[in-house]
């Protein structure tokens, strides 16, 4: 609302007096000033007319009749609550004395009852039965007998020995796994192929003066580089000066070494 002065009254003042004017509470000079402002102000005049019209509309509204069962419903939802509360209080007062043990049992039962009710369901019972069956079969296959459990020695030395045995078995088992072995040998081969050639030794051996007959490099002992590696049988007939036995004319036999994988 614009705050302008018209006929000695500001619009804010008019707004404050509007309710009283509609209620008929204004009189005398105040009423005259109010009416004069309403006639001269472009904003407040229509506001007065609209407010009077709105009040007229609202006064035309009649009171609505509530539903017939409303009182009954209210009393049922309130007075009923009172009686219940009183009954509850009386019931609490009339309860027999209960020992603390019974109270603990009751509270425990209260906590465990939902769990027990869940466990008792057929599907859970079947799952537990299957798990027990699988465990017992597994132990039987593994050779574990319940009678052996009684013979277990719990002395420290015995426990240490059992631990060492178990560790050795595990290591042995691990090293004999085919895939482990293959991976190790492959890694070794790759390492050997990829490694750059070693620069020559600083001083060359003098073969002429070497009378030790030792090889230049120590021979690498690899017994199983490949499963089908040919190993020549020792054939002393190659050396013409050497002694020749009956086996001189034996053929070269390819020998395939197989490694036993456990």
């Amino acid at each position: 609302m614009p705050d302008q002065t018209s006929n000695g009254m500001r619009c804010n003042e008019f707004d404050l007096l509007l309710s009283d004017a509609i209620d008929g509470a204004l009189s005398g000079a105040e009423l005259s000033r109010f009416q004069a402002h309403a006639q001269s102000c472009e904003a407040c005049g229509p506001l007065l007319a609209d407010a009077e019209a709105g009040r007229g509309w609202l006064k035309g509204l009649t009171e609505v009749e509530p539903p017939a069962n409303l009182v009954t419903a209210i009393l049922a939802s309130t007075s009923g609550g009172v009686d219940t509360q009183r009954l509850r209080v009386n019931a609490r007062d009339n309860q027999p004395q209960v020992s603390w043990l019974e109270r603990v049992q009751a509270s425990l039962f209260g906590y465990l009852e939902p769990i027990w009710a869940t466990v008792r369901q057929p599907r859970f019972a079947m799952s537990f039965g299957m798990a027990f069956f699988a465990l017992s079969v597994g132990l039987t296959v593994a050779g574990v007998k319940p009678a052996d459990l009684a013979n277990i020695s719990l002395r420290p030395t015995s426990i240490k020995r059992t631990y060492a045995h178990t560790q050795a078995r595990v290591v042995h088992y691990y090293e004999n796994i085919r895939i482990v072995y293959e991976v190790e040998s492959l890694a070794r081969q790759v390492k050997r192929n990829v490694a750059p050639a070693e620069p020559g030794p600083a001083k060359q051996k003098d073969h002429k003066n070497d009378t030790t007959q030792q090889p230049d490099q120590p021979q690498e002992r690899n017994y199983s580089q490949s499963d089908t590696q040919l190993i020549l049988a020792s054939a002393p007939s190659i050396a013409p000066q050497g002694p020749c036995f009956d086996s001189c004319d034996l053929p070269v036999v390819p020998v395939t070494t197989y490694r036993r994988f456990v």
Partner: protein
Amino acid sequence: MVLELSVFWLLQAFGPQDQSQVGTVISGELQVEDVQVVAMLVRRCIAGDSAAWEEIVQTYHRRIYNICYRFAGSGDDAQDLTQEVFIKMYRTLPSYDHTKGAFVTWVTTITRNLLVDHFRKTKQDRMTDSIDTVASEHEDAQPLSEQIQDQSAPPDARVRSREVGETVHAALARLSPELREALILRDLQDMDYREIASVLKVPEGTVKSRINRGRAELARLLQRTYRQVM
């Protein structure tokens, strides 16, 4: 009831006239609320007198239902809200202090607070509804313009008056809740400005301003609708 009335007349005859009596006109059997009478009724209720509680329910249920109906716009909602108001009133009855204000103001404050809660809860539902389908108990969700078109048809004045009332009710539901509650308390429940200010917890000047704006807006709304129909 006889006891309360006799106490009321005794107090009116010999008691202090300025403080003990609050001139609040309410619909129902109890036309003038007396602080002492109501205080006694409340004390009897707290002591467990079911007859006293029933008397309170009988006296105030119509007023509370009407406030709820005009604010919520639906008869079903009004019934539920009225029950909620009485449940809350019953629980908080011991907290009523007759020295702080009239019982009817206290009851109206409880009603208004529940209405605000209800308004907040149903805000999302209302946003999805069409403006023209404001529900009313006696209408089949007709648009406002159609209601006004129909009102010229029936010759019976009572039917016409009822339909005009429904139109105004529908227009009232389209006002903002602040303006609507102020109008309901002032023009439909005839509460004075001081009591309304106490219920709404705003200054008296704000109450007057809201009432003026609400009346003007309602009139403009109805005039605009009528103009569209014409």
